[in-house]
């Protein structure tokens, strides 16, 4: 039996993590303007080796992780992707490949199938080649994705289509939904763009209008009913126009654990934007030690760290005070109430800024990572 029943601050027990996000690499052939990876990407030479990743998976499985998300950057940029999938699958982890599709071939997909891959989550940057390739900043990307969906289906692996929506594509939602059905996806994830990492640079280009957000929410409700049993829709609404924040990551240090390409273990993939935190590395410490006793995980675990208004709020066990990174970015204090919350003193300002950003010019080109020139 692995470690369970750990006592945290305030006497709460710390449960083992359910899911691990393994950011295998930050390398990616695409350059999505809303990329949530940090501004400073980790270099290929600093990435964990095959053996090191396998050891991480082994520790994760033993401590109680059930779902393993193989992500990036583009995980297919790792030459050992099949080997890593196989090792995870042998340890009974439920393996989910989160991919842009670029870097996969029919043969590689078949090898992943043989290695025991459980699920493919394919990102779509738009509903047609023209618009999708502009957003992804990669010509031919859309066509490749269509093939990847086909190969996934012919292997029999369940497919989720992942669409990040923002002001420039939200009005095409119907076409995206139809495309997901045509591609025989079982699930569609519609996530409204989140402003961390590179996405901050394109805030004015991407911020949806409040009308778009309301229309999207209503549409999702209707389509869920219409496509019941055919397509499962998971929807992440825009929090800038919500009343209460999301329980980011389902609560800090509660469910999910992230490992970055270099082995740094993070409570959330944007956690490095909080300067007061120090992070442990799997190269130096055992994973359970990091999860149960690491400073970064304990910093915002439970409710003891909260200030007012969260501290005396009846929702504190529902949303855990929202997103720490957003509190850091907007309030300048990672322990503050998430500024999207109606109870935050900063909320009116945040909303006014969002509305101003959403009125941006739709012909304004995106700013792409690592590219001096911009195209529209």
């Amino acid at each position, binding site marked *: 039996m*692995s470690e369970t029943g750990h006592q945290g601050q305030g006497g709460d027990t710390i449960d083992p993590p359910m899911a691990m996000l393994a950011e295998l690499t930050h390398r990616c052939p695409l350059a999505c303007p809303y990329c949530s990876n940090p501004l400073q990407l980790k270099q290929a030479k600093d990435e964990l080796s095959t053996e090191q990743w396998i050891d991480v998976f082994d520790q994760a499985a033993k401590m109680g992780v059930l779902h393993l998300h193989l992500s990036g950057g583009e995980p297919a940029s790792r030459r050992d992707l099949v080997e890593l999938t196989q090792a995870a699958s042998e340890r009974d982890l439920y393996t989910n490949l989160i991919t842009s599709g670029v870097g996969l071939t029919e043969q590689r997909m078949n090898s992943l199938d043989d290695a025991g891959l459980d699920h493919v989550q394919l990102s779509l940057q738009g509903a047609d080649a023209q618009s999708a390739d502009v957003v992804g900043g990669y010509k031919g990307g859309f066509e490749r994705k269509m093939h990847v969906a086909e190969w996934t289906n012919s292997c029999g692996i369940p497919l989720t289509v992942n669409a990040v929506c923002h002001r420039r594509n939200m009005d095409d939602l119907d076409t995206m939904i139809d495309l997901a059905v045509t591609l025989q996806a079982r699930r569609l994830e519609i996530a409204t763009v989140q402003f961390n990492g590179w996405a901050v640079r394109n805030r004015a280009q991407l911020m949806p209008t409040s009308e778009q957000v309301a229309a999207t929410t209503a549409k999702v409700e209707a389509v869920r009913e219409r496509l019941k*049993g055919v397509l499962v829709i998971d929807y992440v609404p825009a929090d800038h126009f919500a009343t209460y924040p999301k329980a980011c990551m389902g609560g800090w240090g509660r469910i999910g654990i992230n490992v970055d390409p270099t082995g740094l273990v993070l409570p959330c993939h944007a956690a490095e934007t909080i300067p007061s935190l120090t992070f442990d590395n799997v190269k130096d410490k055992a994973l359970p030690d990091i999860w149960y006793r690491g400073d970064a995980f304990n910093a915002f675990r439970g409710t003891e760290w909260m200030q007012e208004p969260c501290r005396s709020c009846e929702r504190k066990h529902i949303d855990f005070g929202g997103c720490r990174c957003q509190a850091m970015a907007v309030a300048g204090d990672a322990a503050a109430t998430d500024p999207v919350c109606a109870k935050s003193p900063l909320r009116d300002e945040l909303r006014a800024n969002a509305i101003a950003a959403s009125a941006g010019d739709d012909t304004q080109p995106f700013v792409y990572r690592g590219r001096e020139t911009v195209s529209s």
Partner: protein
Amino acid sequence: MSEAISVTGDSVLRLARGVKMRQDDVRQRTVLLAPERTVALDETGIAILSRLNGEASLDTIAAGLARSYNAPHSVILKDATTFLQDLADRRFLEAVT
């Protein structure tokens, strides 16, 4: 486009590819794992799902369960139908025709 499944006594079902029932040793329970989902199963859920072999109809399965648990067939069939319809709506099941 795939068809939505309407679960009845005649349905012959099995877990869809990518949906797995497994023992969660650390938490000492049985779970159903599917894309982005974990469902903790109770004894009834385990009993039903472990009999979904893609060959027996739900009615046959319910009859078997009624015998093992000494409960009315109609009640078991009704409960199993509700349980499985919910899983089918989440695309966890495949119908065998």
